[in-house]
């Protein structure tokens, strides 16, 4: 996933794909070999060999998929809510000067603030079960979506608006035909970041609020010192989460293909 830029110290060009593939393969081999060897050596009781971990992963795959489905369902529900609110608030903030001056700084604070802080009081307001979890996912995702939407709407080039106005586009049409296509790259970035945060929020909710789904699997494995299961669950979660992000990335590129480079 290296960018197109040149490397000042040592570069063999991005076209040398055989070299690059070999290096990638070496990286994977090194990682799994190191994992296996450290696991076999028994120096750290928390690290069991890769082969043991994958055997466990294979045995538990049904459980893991089911647990992950529950976690992702929470993530999806909160994310959907965050998309609606984030797009609306972001657009309003982006189009009005007063919104930009007053609400934008608050959204910035919301992006930086550690939302996990809410865990001890979330029960007071929305409950610890599904509703509380969805709420946590929502606050994790909404600010990233809103701030990117606002930036996109705000950055619509003035020349573009002026040209459209000269051709008689105004009012709602201006937003539908001019502002929203031009803001689309920003909005999609916001949605992708928001999706990542939503998954994070769901995992935290499953670990720290009412323990269930993926959180239950991991905590059970950890508290019974079932290391193969713990590593299998951790590996599985990381893989699923990164697949979600890669998928979001690919979708984003796909949707932006029509843009001039």
């Amino acid at each position, binding site marked *: 996933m290296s960018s197109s830029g040149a490397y000042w110290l040592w570069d063999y060009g991005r076209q040398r794909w055989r070299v690059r593939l070999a290096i990638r393969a070496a990286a994977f081999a090194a990682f799994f070999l190191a994992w296996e060897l450290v696991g076999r050596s028994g120096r750290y009781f928390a690290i069991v060999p890769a082969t043991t971990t994958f055997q466990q992963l294979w045995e538990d795959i049904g459980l893991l998929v089911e647990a992950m489905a529950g976690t992702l369902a929470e993530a999806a529900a909160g994310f959907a809510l965050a998309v609606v609110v984030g797009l609306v608030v972001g657009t309003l903030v982006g189009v009005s000067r007063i919104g930009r001056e007053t609400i934008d700084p608050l959204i910035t604070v919301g992006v930086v*603030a550690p939302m996990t802080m809410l865990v001890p009081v979330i029960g007071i307001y929305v409950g610890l079960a599904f509703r509380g979890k969805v709420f946590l996912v929502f606050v994790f995702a909404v600010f990233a979506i809103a701030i990117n939407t606002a930036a996109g709407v705000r950055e619509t080039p003035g020349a573009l608006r002026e040209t459209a106005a000269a051709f008689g586009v105004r009012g709602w049409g201006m937003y539908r035909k001019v502002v929203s296509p031009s803001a689309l790259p920003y909005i999609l970035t916001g949605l992708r970041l928001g999706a990542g945060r939503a998954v994070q929020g769901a995992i935290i909710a499953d670990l720290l609020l009412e323990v269930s789904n993926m959180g239950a699997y991991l905590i059970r494995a950890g508290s019974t010192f079932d290391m193969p299961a713990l590593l299998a669950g951790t590996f599985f979660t990381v893989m699923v989460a990164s697949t979600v992000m890669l998928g979001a990335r690919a979708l984003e590129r796909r949707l932006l293909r029509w843009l001039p480079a």
Partner: protein
Amino acid sequence: MARVGIPTVASSRPTPERRRPGRWRALLGNRWLHRAVVWGGLIGVWYALAVWKGPFFMATPGATVGGLGRLASEGYLPTLATTLRQLSVGFGLAVAVGVPVGLLMGSARAVDDFLAPYVNTLFVTSKEALLPFLITMFGVALEFRVAVVFLFAVFFIIMNTAAGVRGVDPGLLETARAFRVPRRRMFTKVVLPASLPYVIAGLRLGLATAIKGMVIAELWVTAGVGLLLKNFGAFRRLDMFFALAVVIIGIGVLSTSLLLVLERRLQSARSAS
């Protein structure tokens, strides 16, 4: 709202045409006035909600401000200081590892090809999933919290540093090569100064996530600030809870905006030279 100004100079942003504003207009257009009104309104809503629902549900703005004082007078500041010390240890480690790794990844394609899959995967995925593993690995002691802060911060630093190094103006590098500037000097005089704003940006984003990691880790093991938050929540000392939340958010906002100022300084210094 879609007011379109008269086409003026080719600027990317439509500057609202400025008729000579009268004094009243100027005052009404002042952004601090807008902020005072809107933020004051939000605080008013908060106040009304808190009074309506009672202190068992929500602390009033006044009680929250009072809570700030009580955090100090009831002796909770040392706990906060300990937490911040652990944060700085973990973050310091993340900087010490992340900047060199990022510099290497940005300088040599081989290193980038080798490390990118891991860095990218851990950068985008939820490091929260690693918590149960980390706790069996490190126990509940200091090492665990330092490890969590480190993991939350380090990938932002690596990614941004590498991007900064890769983004150094090729023309600048060409010139340096034409003058046969030795590599070490090229690194210290060209590459490092040009990528510094990106490094600072990485530190800024990394610090914000490090604080998030710290909160998660301390809630998980019920220690430090996490213990305080849990206790204040459980015993419904919501004035204290809100005050502590304000302090934590304040630390995050303040430190990241200081780094943002530094970043902008460096950027403008670079474009000026």
